């Protein structure tokens, strides 16, 4: 059993074993290549679910403002495992498997709700808000006949409660008792990004966007770790000065992990040497509504930052829009992408309006994101047709070292460097 007892390296993520055995071999070039079967193979997918989502990782559930009162719950998934987060009587938020201990039925079949306790719709097994089995019908039988065996112990048949943490209002959970603490798991750089946008202020929920993208889940992660495409696909960025290939930027793949941190600085619209190379730059385009592309300076001072918290979540601010992103793999060839938008309780009406307005840049209809899901669809089609071929990620070099410029695929290399080892390829 590969279960380490100490984690001396910051950010080190140690994989767990999986019963799935995979014959495939990674191309000899290593992490500068992505073999396309990694986006389609069912066995690879199952192993990823075991090793990453059920392993020594911390997974995003949601924000505490989504479950404001005792008994409020929200449904989510960690990998393919249905889970819920619920506000318990002591005010803390618990994370439970969304699975009746009896026959596996989904206990909560709504996205959100408020209950006194949980009752499975099938046989009415009843659990308290912490998942303890409180009662089940006919435990003593009916008219003296039947009932559960005498040695049936309800304490052994509760809903499993996961280890969880609340960091500044974000809720994370792990299935593994061996996972390091959340702080150790993230490491200081990722933790700093989380704390920047979740500084402990009371949060307000603004809403969700969800999309089902017909591509493997890792393609989205690569897309977010790919600043190379940003100004080339999303001309909107450079056209309106929100981001540029020559902006002051940093790409940091966190060693021994799938985490990364990416930072850039908003410098406004300008023409330099870099811009003529970007074929789709348009000097004649202006927005009629300038506010859409003009962030108001707030705590981040024009710094567009974010962290990918492996395996499946991102935090960060874009203009004045605060959001988390969560990826839910649905199958080898489909994943769900959820944006959760939030604000702070002390935001005035003006700031809230800006946050809502600038959300037009993101999500399924976002000015700088709607093209992404279109492209991921295309990549999945190509990968499906040619599983034996491979993608090449050498922009910026062949290493996984931190960079102080933007146009690089180093974050994707860093991701696969970790992935190859963790999956045992």
């Amino acid at each position: 059993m590969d279960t380490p007892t100490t984690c001396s390296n910051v950010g080190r993520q140690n994989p767990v074993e999986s019963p799935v055995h995979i014959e495939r071999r990674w191309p000899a070039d290593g992490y500068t290549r992505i073999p396309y079967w990694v986006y389609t193979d069912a066995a690879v997918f199952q192993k990823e679910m075991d090793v990453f989502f059920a392993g020594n990782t911390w997974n995003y559930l949601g924000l505490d403002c989504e479950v404001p009162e005792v008994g409020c719950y929200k449904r989510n998934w960690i990998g393919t495992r249905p889970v819920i987060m619920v506000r318990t009587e002591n005010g803390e938020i618990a994370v439970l498997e969304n699975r009746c201990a009896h026959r596996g039925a989904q206990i909560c079949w709504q996205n959100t709700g408020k209950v006194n306790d949980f009752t499975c719709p099938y046989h009415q097994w009843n659990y308290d808000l912490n998942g303890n089995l409180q009662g089940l019908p006919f435990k003593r039988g009916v008219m003296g006949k039947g009932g559960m065996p005498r040695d049936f112990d309800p304490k052994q048949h509760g809903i499993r409660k996961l280890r969880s943490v609340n960091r500044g209002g974000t809720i994370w959970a792990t299935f593994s008792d061996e996972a390091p603490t959340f702080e150790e798991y993230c490491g200081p750089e990722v933790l700093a990004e989380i704390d920047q946008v979740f500084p402990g202020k009371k949060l307000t929920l603004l809403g969700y966007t969800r999309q089902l993208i017909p591509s493997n889940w890792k393609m989205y992660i690569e897309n977010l770790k790919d600043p190379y495409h940003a100004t080339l696909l999303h001309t909107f960025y450079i056209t309106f000065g929100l981001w540029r290939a020559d902006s002051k930027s940093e790409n940091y793949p966190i060693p021994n992990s799938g985490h990364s941190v990416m930072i850039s600085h908003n410098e406004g619209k300008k023409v330099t040497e870099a811009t003529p190379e970007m074929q789709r730059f348009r000097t004649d385009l202006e927005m009629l509504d300038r506010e859409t592309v003009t962030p108001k300076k707030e705590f981040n001072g024009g710094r567009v930052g974010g962290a990918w918290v492996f395996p499946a979540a991102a935090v960060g601010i874009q203009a004045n829009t605060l959001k988390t992103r969560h990826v839910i793999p649905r199958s080898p060839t489909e994943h769900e992408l959820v944006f959760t938008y939030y604000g702070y309780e002390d935001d005035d009406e003006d700031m809230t309006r800006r946050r809502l307005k600038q959300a037009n840049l993101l999500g399924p209809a976002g000015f700088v994101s709607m093209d992404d899901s279109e492209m991921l669809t295309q990549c999945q089609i190509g990968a499906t047709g040619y599983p034996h071929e491979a993608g090449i990620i050498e922009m910026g070099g062949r290493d996984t070292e931190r960079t102080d410029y933007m146009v690089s695929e180093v974050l994707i290399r860093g991701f696969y460097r970790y992935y190859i080892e963790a999956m045992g390829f």
Partner: protein
Amino acid sequence: MLDNEAVCLYALGERVYATQDRCPHGNASLSEGYIEDCLIECPLHQGLFDIETGKPKGPPVTTDLKCYEVKVNDGTVYLRTAGP
């Protein structure tokens, strides 16, 4: 039945008690439950109530049972209902 509500009668030693029959926690009949000491255990989720006072005594129940004042006369049980 009394005033369209089902009533559950209990014989504990010499005394007779009466409470609402429907468990406030779920769709269950307390008369199908299990008595131990002076507590009635709901058959659905094993919630416990004190028969005498109607107070909840064990999870998952948290609400009081409606109790009726009982008088036994010549082998007939009388319950006090709300006055006119």
